[in-house]
C-alpha cells in the first residue's frame, strides 16, 4: 500500500512531461531502459500513465466509498435508532438496492446519467451503500439499549447528539473495516465501468480504460493491456489485505 501511494503521488516525478505526452515515433515500443513498461498506441509512457492513473483510481475509489459510506451510515443509523416504520421504509429501500447484483446497478446509473468522473463516483458509491446501511443498522441495534445510551436519553440529550456522541464511537470499528474492503471493490467497479467505456473520458489514464485500449494489441503489444491489469490487481489486493489486517486488529473475534 505504501509503495502504491508513493508510486501514485510520485507521478509528476516519474513523468514530469505529464500523462498525455505523445511521441508518435515511439508507438507501441516494448519495455526498455527508456520506457520501463513500454509505450502505448500514441507513444505515451505506460509507466507514467499508470502512476497518474493510480492517483485517479485512489481518488475515485475513496470518494465513491465516502459517498456510499456517508449515505449508508446515515440510513443505517436512522433505521436502527428509530426502528418502527422508519426502519421498515429505509431497509425496504436497501433490500431493493441489494436485489441488483454487484456492478449492474452502477452500470444502470451511469447508463442513465451519462459517462464521466462524477457520475461514476455517484454510481459506484450507491452500489456500496446498502452494505454500509445494513452493517450500521445491526450495530446500532446492538448498542441502542445499552445503559450509557439510555442514560443519555434520560438526561434529555437530542437524538442526533446521542447517535453522534454515544453510538457512533462504539460502532465505528467494523465500519472502518468494511470501508477499506469496499475501496477494493469500488476500484474494481470503477475499472469495469471504464473498461466498458462508461468511466472517465480520454486523456485521463484510467486503468480500466487503459486495459480496454490494450485489447486491440494483445497479439502485438501485450504490455499495453497487461500492466494496467497488474496495477489494479495489486491495488485491490493491497486494500483487501489492509481490510483483513484492520479486522484482525479492531475485531479479534473475527480473526481467521
Amino acid at each position, binding site marked *: 500500500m505504501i509503495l502504491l501511494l508513493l508510486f501514485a503521488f510520485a507521478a509528476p516525478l516519474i513523468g514530469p512531461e505529464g500523462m498525455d505526452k505523445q511521441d508518435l515515433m515511439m508507438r507501441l515500443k516494448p519495455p526498455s531502459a527508456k520506457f520501463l513498461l513500454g509505450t502505448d498506441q500514441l507513444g505515451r509512457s505506460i509507466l507514467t500513465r499508470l502512476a497518474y492513473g493510480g492517483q485517479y483510481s485512489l481518488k475515485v475509489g475513496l470518494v465513491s466509498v465516502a459517498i456510499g459510506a456517508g449515505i449508508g451510515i446515515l440510513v443505517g443509523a436512522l433505521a436502527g435508532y428509530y426502528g418502527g416504520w422508519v426502519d421498515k421504509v429505509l431497509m425496504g429501500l436497501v433490500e431493493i438496492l441489494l*436485489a441488483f447484483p454487484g456492478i449492474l446497478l452502477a452500470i444502470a446509473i451511469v447508463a442513465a*446519467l451519462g459517462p464521466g468522473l462524477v457520475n461514476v463516483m455517484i454510481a459506484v458509491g450507491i452500489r456500496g451503500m446498502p452494505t454500509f446501511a445494513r452493517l450500521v443498522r445491526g450495530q446500532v441495534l446492538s448498542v441502542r439499549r445499552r445503559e450509557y445510551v439510555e442514560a443519555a436519553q434520560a438526561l434529555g440529550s437530542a437524538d442526533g447528539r446521542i447517535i453522534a456522541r454515544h453510538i457512533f464511537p462504539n460502532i465505528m470499528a467494523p465500519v472502518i473495516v468494511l470501508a477499506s474492503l469496499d475501496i477494493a471493490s469500488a476500484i474494481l467497479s470503477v475499472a469495469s465501468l471504464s*473498461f466498458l*467505456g462508461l468511466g472517465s473520458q480520454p486523456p485521463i489514464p484510467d486503468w480500466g480504460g487503459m486495459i480496454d485500449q490494450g485489447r486491440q494489441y*494483445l497479439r502485438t503489444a501485450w504490455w499495453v493491456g497487461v500492466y494496467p491489469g497488474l496495477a489494479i490487481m495489486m491495488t485491490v*489486493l493491497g486494500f483487501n489485505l489492509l481490510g483483513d489486517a484492520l479486522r484482525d486488529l479492531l475485531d479479534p473475534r473475527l480473526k481467521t
Partner: protein
Amino acid sequence: MLKYAAKKLLASLPVLLGVSLLVFLIMHLTPGDPAAVILGPDADQESVQVLRTKLGLDQPLPVQYARYLGRLAHGDLGVSIRSNQPVSKELGSRYPFTMELAVVSLVISVVLGIGAGVIAAVKKGSIGDTLTMVTALVGVSAPSFWIGLMLMMLFSYYLRWLPASGRGGPLWTLAGWKTILLPAIALGLGSAATIARMTRSSLLEVLNQDFIRTARAKGLPERVVIFRHALSNAMIPVVTIVGLHLGFLLGGSVIVEQVFAWPGIGTQVVTAIGNRDFPVVQAAVLMIALSFVLINLVVDMVYGMVDPRIRYD
C-alpha cells in the same frame, strides 16, 4: 415446504415491485428530455414531440409507471428504439446464453473453490495451504475482464488451443465447450476464490468440533471423516454464498461477455447503452435483477434442505 415457498415468494413481491420501480426511475434520471437525448442534438422539436408521445413521456410519472407495470405483467418489455423490434424478443433469445455462461462459471467456481478450500483446510499450515490462499486472494483482486484477456492471450493467441470469441454451439457439442471455457473461467475465478476461502474457514471450524473427534476416535478413515462428517456440515454457509454468486455471475457476465463477444444480454446491454436504446437497457437490467431475486429465493429453499435445523414454518 410448499407453504414456505409460497410465503417466501409473497414476501419477495414488494422487492420485485421495488426493483421495477427503481429500474423505471433510473432510466428517468437521464438529464434533459430522454426523447431529445435518444434522437440526438440535431433532431427538430416536432420529432422529439412525436417520440415523447410514442414513449408515453408526455404523461405524468405515476401514470407512466402504472402503464409500464401493466405492460410488464403482459410480458411486454417495450420496443427497441434502434431495431423497432420487441425487446422481449431481442433479449429473450439472448437470455439463455447469459444463463448458460453464468451456470457453467458457477460449476467451475464451485469445483475449483470447494476443492481448493478442502485441500487448504486439511493441509492447514502447509505450503499448499498458503499457496492456495494466496492464489485465492489474488483471484478476488484481479478484474474478471482482465483475467479474460490474459486467458485469451495465452490460450487463443499463443497456444492456439481455444477460440478467442463467440459461441460455438450448444453445450453438448465440442465447439460449444471450446468457446464457453475461457469466458466461464474468467467470470468464475473470482467466485472460486471466495468459495475457497469460505470453504476453508468453515471446514476448519467444523474440524475442531467434538463429533469429528468422536468420528476419529471410532477409527474412521480420515477420508470418511472429512467428506462424510465434516464437509456436509461445513457446506451450509458455502451453499448460501454459492447461490448468491450465481446472481453476481449474472451481473458480472455483462462485462465478460463484452470481452469474448458472447451473444448474451451483457453484450446487448453495452451496445444498447452506446446507442442510447433505453428500453433495451431497462429491460435487461430488470431481467437480471429479477433473476437475482428469484435465485435468492431458490437458495433459501435449498438452504432449508441442506440444513434440517432450519424449519420451514
